[in-house]
């Protein structure tokens, strides 16, 4: 006797432990299998792009670290680079190096969070998260030491950075870098070699390379799909052209590839920080920039490799003190756009894991 079944709709989110904020997936299920998914974003929309048009260029910096609040430094950096490019302000050498150091530290912190939350979505009950938080806490301590804030560090300024590093910064950073390789190989042994993680992640949420490119996916997701692309190499900014590092690339485009790419990127970030620390020149940390900056009429697009992917700012100036248009190309939103193709046909558990592996940040998705 054939059993009469019918699909049913489950709302995963906006209030759900693993939607990373207030993302909502309206999932149509056939038993455990997903036959359709509708993604609903906008629950955290704060209208930042419009608000920014009413504020001066300097006043807009705080918005940028409230977008991706887990990677505030790179948000600052991307915006400041765009504003500098628009108004043609040269950045002192020391500031460029400090920016590299803080951006890479931020990448490590963000990836630590991403990996921990990913494993949490796999069901590991917070343990990997807590372990990875050790590194993240130390990095946030370094931030606090330098600029007084841990999460929303309004550290970068147009034309440089806000503060020079204090005396105790370099020993603390060296201690962190000293213990990091050992910790990283510990995580690789425990996470990458874990059979359950392997079973849960391999062939789950596969994003083929052509689809990844077509969907403008960037960052670790793009590299996980097997495409060698990194803006730090392809279009160097700050002092990245003087750094030596490798780009980890995955094989299959599944969640496991994203995991191993992120883990390896943490190592490479540590490598970059070490080099930047050695090459760190003296000198001023900030160019003289008028408080009421009035860039010449024009438009610019500037992009960096943020932990989540390509973070770009498109600024249009009409010659006034506030941007005429302030557009953010946020990696989280564009990475998320490929979700449907990745999870239809999989199970609910896979959907959650795949969403975790994308590493979205709702602050950046909705802005």
């Amino acid at each position: 006797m054939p059993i009469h079944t019918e699909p049913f709709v489950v709302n995963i989110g906006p209030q759900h432990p693993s939607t990373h904020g207030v993302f909502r997936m309206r999932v149509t299920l056939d038993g455990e299998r997903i036959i359709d998914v509708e993604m609903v974003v906008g629950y955290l929309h704060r209208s930042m792009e419009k608000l920014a048009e009413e504020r001066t260029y300097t006043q807009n910096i705080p918005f940028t670290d409230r977008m991706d609040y887990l990677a505030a430094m790179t948000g600052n950096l991307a915006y400041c680079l765009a504003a500098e490019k628009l108004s043609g302000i040269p950045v002192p050498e020391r500031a460029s190096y400090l920016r590299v150091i803080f951006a890479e530290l931020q990448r490590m912190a963000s990836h630590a969070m991403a990996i921990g939350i990913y494993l949490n979505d796999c069901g590991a009950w917070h343990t990997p998260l807590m372990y990875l938080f050790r590194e993240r806490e130390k990095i946030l301590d370094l931030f606090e030491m330098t600029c007084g804030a841990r999460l929303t560090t309004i550290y970068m300024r147009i034309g440089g950075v806000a503060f020079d590093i204090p005396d105790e910064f370099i020993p603390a950073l060296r201690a962190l870098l000293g213990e990091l390789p050992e910790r990283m190989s510990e995580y690789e042994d425990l996470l990458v070699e874990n059979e359950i993680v392997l079973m849960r992640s391999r062939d789950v949420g596969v994003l083929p390379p052509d689809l990844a490119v077509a969907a403008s996916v960037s960052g670790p997701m793009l590299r996980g799909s097997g495409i060698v692309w990194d803006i730090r190499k392809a279009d160097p900014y700050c002092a990245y052209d003087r750094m030596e590092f490798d780009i980890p690339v995955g094989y299959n485009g599944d969640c496991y590839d994203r995991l191993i790419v992120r883990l390896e990127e943490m190592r490479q970030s540590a490598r970059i920080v070490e080099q930047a620390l050695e090459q760190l020149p003296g000198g001023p940390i900030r160019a003289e920039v008028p408080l009421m900056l009035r860039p010449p009429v024009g438009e610019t697009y500037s992009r960096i490799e943020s932990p989540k992917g390509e973070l770009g700012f498109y600024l249009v100036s009409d010659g006034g003190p506030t941007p005429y248009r302030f557009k953010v190309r946020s990696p989280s939103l564009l990475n998320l756009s490929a979700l449907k193709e990745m999870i239809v046909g999989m199970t609910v558990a896979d959907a959650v894991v795949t969403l975790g592996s994308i590493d979205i940040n709702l602050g950046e998705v909705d802005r």
Partner: protein
Amino acid sequence: MPLLAPWYDFRDLSHAVHRMLDAVADVGGPDWLIYVLSAVIGCAGLGILIGGAVIFNIWLERRLVGRIQVRRGPNRAGPWGLLQPIADTLKLIQKESLTPRAGDFIVFTLAPVLVFVPAILAFAVFPWGPGMTFTDLNVGLLYIIAITSVTVLAVFMAGWSSNNKYSLLGAMRGIAMLISYEIPAVLTLLGVVIFAGTMSISGIVLWQEDMRIWLVVLQPLPLLIYLVTAAAEINRTPTDIPEAESELVAGYHTEYSGIKFGMFYAVELVNGVAVSALIASLYFGGWWLFGLNQWIPGWIIFIGKVYAFYFVLIWLRGTLPRFRIDQLMGFAWKFLLPLSLINIFLVALEVLIWVEYEVSAAVVLPIFSAVNIALAGLLVVAWTRLMAFHFERLPKRPRMYGDIAVPAEQPTGTAS
């Protein structure tokens, strides 16, 4: 242990009760009074023990998981946070216990009560020491298997009556999983029964004492299988799929709040103890510890062993991620079931050889244990390689590129 120990001999806690019942009989009390008295005393004892275990386990679990997760765990309420479970319980009792408006109120209320029943009943047959059993059923093992299956009913009631899709999905998963895992669980426990020749739990413990061997040495593979199935049946991580927090919020008890939720939470802890007690009795000699039980009361040894296994369960929860439901079902049917069938065949063969040729136990048991341990290692490794073959086809480390080929047509604009 001498039968005529004085009443205050705390090696056998049941002794005082027996003395009291004898006294009642001497005075000429009616028979039914003796039955009622012994039942009430036993129930009260078990109730206190289970209640105490719940309170203690909340603290133990939170504390140990805290340590596993490089944090401190509860340490504010009382010394070392020992009063934390009391604070937790009081909070749960105070909280409003909501019922969904579209839910089935009666079934919804009944489920947290019903889920507790099998958990408590299972404790009736464990021997806490020589002679210290509430009821020494001669089908004790069968009884435990039967009684713990009732949990499925409560899980389904909770999931269905909540009128919540997460709950329903959790209940569906729970039923599918519990039914699948019953089979390997029963088949593996059968190995113990074939060796010991009895289904009574105290009989199995006594057999281990007679042979002066722990059954784990003879049955290493079943212990592993049973540990996995037990973890699945009591919904603990790696296999806490019915209440998968990251997917189904809280699975079948999503809608429960207040003390009703507390019941589900507590029953998980009680079940953990019950499973540990079963493993300790069947595979690790229960109260028997190579003659040391002459000096240390059997029940202390037993509780020690139980908590050793409870620690393993906490450890598993603290370390392992969760399986997916289809992987877990596949694991039960493709991995555990064939292995437990192989194990039964092996055990039957060994017992046949033992009985048929009338070899002395001292000769035959070491050989059997050596053979079984070697085979267990071989089978587990071979089967795992086979299962993981598909997943290990790609390398586990990313490819590294030192430089990239920048395509000719770049997106407009460069930075800095």
